[in-house]
């Protein structure tokens, strides 16, 4: 009895000690009190989620946050021009896969490693290991972390469960089966409408971000070992050709003008049996107010290529600190980023429909209890694990090289000589690539 009491007392003392230890590990959130910081944001669901909560952060830290959000196209222009002009920008949203090399070379990105490793600046509860490794990697340039993921994306094959069951079709596991299923459904009459087998993006540069998953799964790559364009290789040509053929033979009319908005609306209208696009569009497909196929959609990872490769990409939006800002404001900006990406906000954003880059958010009871599409979650988790962070050409001038790539996709959709077009694009890419 005495021993029991003793050990109980010991346990009590120990836990009290632990508690005070964790309390003392809590960083001083008021250290940048009175500082005003300005963040430029893309008008993105994450921005919508975080904006009303900023008051909480301001109360916690005494830092004033000015947040300005713009639609994506204008956002990129505005951010580039403001950063170049040296305007007062302390932090911003970045899509690292698209802009990291360019912004890094331009000297606009402040490495975050110093803040993350400083126990005075980063609370242990923030736990960097909780983020998926693929996203931490894709938010890094030359081994330096330049952003913290706020929106984690990949692409998935979405298909009509009702049609697949009705016609006893299997979810395609490889590209051959994908083509066979697309062919099977193409032209079938459903409720007086003619179905198409599959819908994909076909609009030049906009298509490359989805086509790249086919490129990698066919064993292709942007550049070869010598750093030259790899477009003229048999694998790359096969990927261009397969993608173009699928869209021309089994896709909607006018494939070369399909951006994601056109492609997803075809699928939501119930006109396509399958679609390959960003996983986050689940929110569109499953919205009964806008989608005729809500509740009837299944999700799967990209089918395997000829050699069994299954390589989707992962992309993300991250929050970054501007290198052009002052050290005092950069510190305040880090406190804000840390707060905006903490476990609570990761989960909160996920529950609000913004896919979190934190494992703990997806594993949480709150998420699992509300998950209406567990097959989507399972496919997304698998894709996050096997996903490639490099979904754009590994160059500084990404838009220009995407544009060159997109022309081959357009030619492939139009049924032109793909090998010829790819060869021409490879030469042009070699001439225009900047690193």
């Amino acid at each position, binding site marked *: 009895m005495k021993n029991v009491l003793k050990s109980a007392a010991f346990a009590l003392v120990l836990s009290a000690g632990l508690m005070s230890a964790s309390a003392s590990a809590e960083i001083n959130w008021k250290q940048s009190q009175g500082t005003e910081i300005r963040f430029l944001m893309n008008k993105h669901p994450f921005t919508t989620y975080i904006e009303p909560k900023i008051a909480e952060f301001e109360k916690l830290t005494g830092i004033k946050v000015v947040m300005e959000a713009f639609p994506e196209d204008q956002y990129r*222009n505005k951010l*580039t*021009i403001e*950063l*170049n002009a040296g305007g007062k920008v302390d932090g911003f949203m970045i899509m690292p896969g698209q802009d990291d090399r*360019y*912004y890094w*070379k*331009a000297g*606009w990105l402040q490495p975050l490693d110093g803040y993350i490793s400083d126990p005075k600046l980063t609370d242990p509860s923030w736990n960097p290991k909780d983020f998926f490794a693929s996203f931490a990697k894709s938010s890094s340039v030359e081994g330096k972390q330049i952003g913290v993921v706020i929106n984690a994306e990949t692409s998935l094959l979405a298909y009509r469960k009702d049609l697949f069951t009705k016609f006893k079709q299997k979810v395609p596991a490889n590209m051959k089966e994908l083509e066979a299923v697309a062919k099977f459904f193409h032209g079938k009459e459903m409720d007086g409408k003619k179905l198409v087998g599959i819908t994909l993006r076909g*609009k*030049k540069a906009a298509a490359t971000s989805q086509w790249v998953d086919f490129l990698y799964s066919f064993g292709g790559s942007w550049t070869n070992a010598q750093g030259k364009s790899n477009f003229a290789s048999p694998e790359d040509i096969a990927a261009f050709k397969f993608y173009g053929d699928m869209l021309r033979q089994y896709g*909607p*009319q*006018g*494939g*070369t*003008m399909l951006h994601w908005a*056109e492609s997803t*609306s*075809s699928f939501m*209208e119930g*006109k396509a049996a399958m679609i390959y696009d960003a996983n986050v569009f689940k929110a569109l497909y499953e919205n009964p107010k806008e989608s005729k196929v809500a509740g009837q959609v299944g999700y799967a990872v990209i089918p395997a290529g000829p050699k069994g490769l299954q390589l989707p990409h992962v992309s993300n939006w991250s929050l970054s600190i501007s290198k052009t800002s002052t050290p005092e404001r950069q510190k305040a900006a880090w406190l804000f980023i840390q707060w905006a990406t903490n476990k609570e906000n990761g989960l909160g954003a996920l529950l609000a429909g913004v896919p979190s880059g934190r494992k703990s958010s997806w594993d949480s009871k709150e998420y699992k209890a509300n998950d209406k599409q567990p097959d989507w979650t399972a496919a997304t988790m698998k894709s996050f694990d096997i996903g490639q962070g490099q979904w754009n050409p590994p160059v*500084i*001038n990404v*838009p*220009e090289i995407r*544009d060159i790539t*997109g*022309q081959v996709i*357009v*030619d492939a959709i*139009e049924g032109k000589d793909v090998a010829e077009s790819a060869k021409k694009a490879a030469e042009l890419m070699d001439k225009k690539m*900047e690193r």
Partner: protein
Amino acid sequence: MKTALSTVSRYVDRRQAFFFPAPAVAVLFLIIVLPVVFNLYLTFTKWTVGLGQPQFIGFDNFVEAFGDERVWNGVKVMIYFSGASLALELALGLAIALYFNRAFKGSEVVQAIYIIPFAATPVAVALIWRIMLNPEIGVLNYLLTSVGLPPGLWVSSADAVIPTLVMVDVWKWTPMITLIVLAGLKSLPQDPYEAARIDGANPLQIFWYITLPLIRPVLIAALMLRSLDNLKEFDMIYTITQGGPGIASETLYLYSYNVSFGFFKAGYGSALMVVVFLVVLVFNVLMNRLRRDASVV
């Protein structure tokens, strides 16, 4: 104090011609002259926005433009689009103006309705056209198929995209030509017509030998006004196709926008802009000469 003030006011008074327009001149200098000069300077440089300072490279940008397939594609698209739309707008504008020129019951109402496309905001109109032209969910194909005609691909086909854009441009801008020509028609002298009728000329002869020569300066003025906008058509094409499919509707103007604001290559983009400017300039000098000759007649 008072004398100082009066000295100043006398000084200003004597130089009114300088001081009064000065603020306006300063603003114009800042927002027009400076950017143009800066643009000309960029023309001779290689500069990606953000990556270092502009590097002077002489005429290299123009040499590059000369060998750039997309520049030639842009020129071709520009000639095709502008040639077709200007010709149609002029012909239709004139025909409709001749029709409106005869007074008929309710002509004011018809004319008011007729100019609506011209009065509407270009981007808003283009957005609506973009949706209407969608081959899958657009209303145009719905209408075509509901009367038993085959659906069209419109701007989704490389072959049909320019004719489709010309159609939209003609729909939007013909009323402008009509308005100008109509004003010209109303101001024509009536004596030659009376003389012609007495001489027994038929309506076609009257049109060909009297109306057309008299109205020619007005037609050329209308063409000049319209061509200024048409040659650098941007908002409508950008909103509907962004130059697609592929580069099938990418005018030189759109290409230079893509280079400058898509790829952030300010030097090369500026050079392309200067080429566009030269094309518009040459065209207008020619038109101006034509107009002067016409007014002499």
